[in-house]
């Protein structure tokens, strides 16, 4: 049992680390459709992590959450985003406020910050998935950074989804899943939010001929 949980713990850590790695890849990526693919990949890692936690702890309801993640975040949402990208014709290079090396450096700093914040509370977690909370916080912070650093409305949306993945990792790995009713509600919200934002980018395109959020400067003090 001891051996199993130690291997399991390392596997969960490995998967969380892969999640974090895809975050860096998204920050470094310039092509929009590749960002969406990377997001789908990240969500796939998330499904594996959740399934691992479910298997190792025997909490059946995490399987449901994992399956939902698979359907919604690996299949539906990337498809919706691809459609939006096709329609908007914004496959070209991404404009960023911060260049890639600097962005990666900042993300590295954010990871350290996340571990620093989470350090005092990590010992209260379960043995199996201790470090996942810090990694989850790091992913949340990187998602937030992506939203700030990128101009296109669609990339802001990808940033938001990365942020949600981080939250989900925190909820599954660090706490073995929240009550099912809450999980379901969160999934519903994420799905609807993505759909709304998808519709919205279309409207922005119609009104501004662009999805550069830089153009959204009609409203001023």
């Amino acid at each position, binding site marked *: 049992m001891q051996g199993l949980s130690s291997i399991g713990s390392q596997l969960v850590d490995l998967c969380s680390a892969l999640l974090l790695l895809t975050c860096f890849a998204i920050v470094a990526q310039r092509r929009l459709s590749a960002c969406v693919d990377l997001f789908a990949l990240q969500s796939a890692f998330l499904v594996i992590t959740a399934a691992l936690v479910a298997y190792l702890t025997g909490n059946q309801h995490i399987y449901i959450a994992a399956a939902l993640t698979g359907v919604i975040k690996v299949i539906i949402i990337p498809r919706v985003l691809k459609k939006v990208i096709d329609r908007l014709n914004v496959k070209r290079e991404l404009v960023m406020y911060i260049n890639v090396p600097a962005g990666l450096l900042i993300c590295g700093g954010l990871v350290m910050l996340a571990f620093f914040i989470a350090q005092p509370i990590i010992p*209260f977690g379960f043995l199996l998935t201790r470090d996942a909370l810090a990694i989850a916080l790091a992913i949340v912070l990187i998602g937030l950074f992506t939203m700030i650093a990128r101009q296109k409305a669609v990339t802001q949306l990808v940033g938001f989804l990365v942020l949600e993945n981080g939250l989900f990792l925190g909820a599954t790995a660090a*706490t073995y899943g*929240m009550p099912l009713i*809450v999980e379901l509600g*969160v999934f519903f919200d994420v799905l609807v*939010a993505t759909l709304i*934002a998808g519709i*919205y980018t279309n409207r922005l395109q119609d009104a501004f001929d662009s999805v550069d959020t830089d153009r959204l400067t009609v409203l001023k003090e």
Partner: protein
Amino acid sequence: MIAVVVLLVAPLLAGGLSLVVHRSALLHAINLTSMGAIVTAEIVITRTVLSDGSLTALDQLVYLDALSTFILFIIGVVGLACSFYMRPYMDDQVARGVIAPGRLNLFFFLFHMFLLAMVVATIANSVGVQWVAIEATTLATTFLIAFWRRRESLEAGWKYLILCSVGISLALFGVVLLYYSSLHVLSDVSQGLNVTQLLPVADRLNPQVLKLAFIFILVGYGTKVGLVPMHSWLPDAYTEAPAPVVAMLAGVLEVVAAYAILRVRMIVDHAVPFAFAGGLLALLGFASLVTAAFFLLIQHNYKRLFAYSSIEHMGIAMIGFGVGGPLGTFGGLFHLLNHAFAKSMAFFAAGNIHRRFHTVEIGDVQGLAMAQPWTATALMISGLALSALPPFAAFASEVQILTALASQGVPGMGFTGSGGMVTVAVSDHFSRVALASVFLVSAVLSFGGLLYRVTGMVWGTPPEEMVRGEVWTLGHMPILLLAGALVGFSLFLPQPMQQLLEQATAILVIQ
């Protein structure tokens, strides 16, 4: 509990019906019936809570105490007022071709969903379900804010969607942490986020985790409340959204989000010293109050003016909760009530002005007293109430908060250290005086800014071609009622109201 079921079913049913009904009169009738049912249910619930204390219903999913009943009361009154106001307002928009008649039922559908989400957020037992409901309000209102589909409204809607979604995601991280802290204490974790489960064991939860959870939740829900520095979506959204929507956003949504913060704080305060949460609340409160006071002085757009006034008043209420104690908390809750009534009324007036003058520039609006006497009265009353002039109840609540601030100071702000007894006493006294002065100066600044602008709009002569006089409509009735309540509450607080406020205060103040 039948009343609880009515609260949930009425907006759901009304929303569903709105999707299939297309006649405007019928849509309004459904809306009014649903609001009437909700208000009736709330009266029943209030009576039960006052006599029996807190109650749970629907298999522990619903938890109602004096605090949530008080918030429900605000939702009901402002919601009903909005429903009456919408009758002439929306019909006018359809008649002028601003909204295609086919889109009216979409408006009502989203409105009902917004209302349902707020009711769920208020009565949910689980902090997690409450989070889901508050996120749902963001989703429902995004399209309501951008309902006119002009470029500006789309911009405001996008900002709102992104900022609030991010903010609320941070709050979710706080909820995850809260759950994390309960894992080792509760035996049955399937209900680990329920207030009824957390409260009895709150003092055994891990303080480190709770502190972190509270910071995330405060920032997250603070975005929805519109506290500085997370407020930047608010003035834009309030300028662009249709008047009844803003009345709901300002009057109810802010209050519900503030309530969500208070609910978590109730748990946190048991394990963490009171000064931690109180100090943070007061800090954000002061930031909002001071920032809003300056922006109020330079505003030339009346909708933004009221938006900044919202930030100011939420800041004041947060200071009240931050200072705490029976007086500060009571003042904070009472201030929420006054703000909800006065602000929704102000935006009703703003909506009327915009329909007549077709501008949001304060400089272009003159002679309102002649052009629209009823609206001018409403604007004047709400303006005076919002600037907390003595005959209005907001004055009473602000004085309560100021008294609490001056006598107790902000927790955690006093200089404690090795300076000896005398130094400590003097510096503590100094910090209280300094904070009270900041409060007073900001309040006076915003009083001046608001009153100067409002009176500028009311007096003078209207433009030549402007139609004079105003036809009495159903939309004026809620304005009158709210005005009556604002004046009345300062003279005499009805017995049940007083009781409800006192019990809610007792829940929040931990001995």
